[in-house]
């Protein structure tokens, strides 16, 4: 599903060049539930952004679903993001003036699905996560856990193959964090590849495979047997 070979990435900050990823090799099969761990500055978010075609890389190769992702036009990137990928963010990134249903339905809007149909689908996905009564609520009327569940519904409504979650539990209390992880696990059991970036060990433990990053290289890959 995901194949990365020798990927480098540096950021230009004024005169200084910051070398963030120093040659990453990574294979993730379809249906895997993977976490990427590392201290801040280890390059985990950068890696996730490259995986999500939100950012470019300088050298190496990245194949997503057997397609080489390189110097893509924005239009094409947008299509891949819409079709293949789903995003879950630490700060939820719900659109504040749209209610839960509209937020969830947004990816379908970009696919050109009619309003009635996409709103019905959105409600269906919200119901899946126990949010059917909160469809009309604006994001600021929802709790953190509820917001993240809305965001997950938005990520999966376009039936992506890969879900990328950047610190999905970073802004949540422990109970909500575990709820969110349960939901991700359920989605994973439906065959969707999930990649979670986190720095919390207990969250990483819930995934099948932990990729440990340190200073821009993969330090270790741990398989969690107990799952």
């Amino acid at each position, binding site marked *: 599903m995901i194949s990365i070979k020798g990927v480098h990435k540096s950021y230009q900050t004024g005169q200084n060049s910051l070398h963030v990823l120093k040659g990453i090799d990574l294979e993730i099969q379809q249906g895997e539930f993977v976490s990427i761990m590392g201290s801040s500055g280890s390059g985990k978010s950068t890696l996730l*952004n490259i995986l*999500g075609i*939100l*950012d470019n890389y300088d050298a190496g190769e990245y194949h997503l679903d057997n397609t080489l992702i390189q110097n893509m036009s*924005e*239009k094409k990137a*947008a*299509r891949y*993001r*819409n*079709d293949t990928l*789903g*995003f879950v*963010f630490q*700060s939820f*990134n*719900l*659109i*504040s*003036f*749209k209610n839960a249903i*509209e937020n969830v339905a*947004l*990816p379908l*809007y*970009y*696919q*050109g699905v*009619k*309003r009635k149909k996409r709103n019905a689908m959105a409600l269906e996905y919200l119901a899946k996560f126990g949010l059917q009564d909160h469809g009309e609520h604006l994001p600021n009327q929802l709790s953190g856990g509820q917001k993240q569940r809305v965001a997950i519904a*938005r*990520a999966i409504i*376009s039936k992506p193959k890969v879900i990328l979650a950047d610190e999905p539990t970073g802004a949540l209390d422990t109970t909500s964090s575990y709820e969110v992880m349960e939901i991700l696990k359920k989605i994973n059991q439906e065959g969707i590849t999930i990649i979670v970036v986190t720095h919390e060990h207990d969250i990483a433990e819930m995934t099948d495979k932990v990729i440990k990053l340190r200073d821009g290289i993969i330090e270790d890959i741990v398989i969690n047997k107990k799952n």
Partner: protein
Amino acid sequence: MFDIERWKEIMSTLKQNKLRSFLTAFGVFWGIFMLIVMAGMGKGFETGVRSGMGGFATNSVFMWTQRTAKPYGGFRRGRNWNFENDDVTLIRKNIKGVKIVAPRLFAGWGSGENTVRGDKSANFNLKGDYPEWIEINPMELLKGRWLNNMDIRERRKVCVLGVKVYEQMFAMGENPIGQYLRVDGIYYQVVGVIEPLTQMNMQGRAEESIFLPFSTMQVVYNYGDAVFVIGAIAEDNVSAAHIQEEIKTMIKKRHKIAPDDEQAVAGFSLEKEFQQISNLFLGIRILTWIVGIGTLLAGVIGVSNIMLVIVKARTKEIGVMRAIGATPRKVIGQILLESAFLTTLAGYLGMFSGMLLLGLINNQLMKAVESGAEGVFLKNPEINFTVAISCLMVLIISGIFAGMIPARKAVSIKPIDALRAE
């Protein structure tokens, strides 16, 4: 663009940001409102003044005599002189390009109450005219007839009254035709009543004048063969200034006046006045459009500016949109349409309000005129359809233009930077 889904998207975005949308729209509203009101008022002023001149022949010249300023041909300077009947005849015969020439006499200024009928008496201007004069200074006949050639030839004691004269000397609804008026001790039979079509007046207001046949007046007032004013109209393709020069040259020669004496023959050409008035209105119009378009431009720049702020404020939203699959085109389209929609809607409202105000003003003016107000130099303030439609087009285009920079800015943000912005 006519995708209903997209419109719903735009409407919900705008509705969720009411204050922002309102502020954005107000600049454009005000700009177009000012433009419409100013253009309309300018037009109304122009229509008012032009109708005040009401068909007064624009290629006409008027000349009268003054003391000479230079000694010439054995005469000293400061000589009093007059035009003569022969001057008129010779102009008609010899000067090419003159369509109509008519002499005029006048009397009655400050001579006490010169007009008497029964127990009514008043002071009016007296004018001695040729029938042709009505073509130089158009008047509407309310009753009876204007002076004719028989009156001139037979020196009839008849008169035509200005409408105010009729109102003062006769009872309401009384038929004046065939009645007699005593003017400076002589009885004249009334043959007509006129109302001037213009507010351009020479030797007093026409509605307060009594018009006598030129020849009658010359005899009765013992003017000899003197002519006080010569009025002329040039042929259609001849400049009035040109015939004025020719007439002056001829007359100066006949009356032994120095050719370079600028004072002796005084004149006034409506052509020049018309040109000046036309230039004045052109100036007003240009000014209106400069100020109006400037205001509108300020409004549009305001929209652009606010849209830019909006894009900045919505950086994250745009990032999210792009992360979940919005193409740059969608983002640009969304912002352009929002901007164009706001501008057009606001502009339309501004245009409508401006027209409403003009309509109200027009209404009040009509009422004022009906109730007898005089000297109203504003008539039918309005703006024509073409101007309105082109305004609307300008609005839509400028709306799209206003959205262009913000939209470009929005897509130049990388999704990742957009998401990082807190």
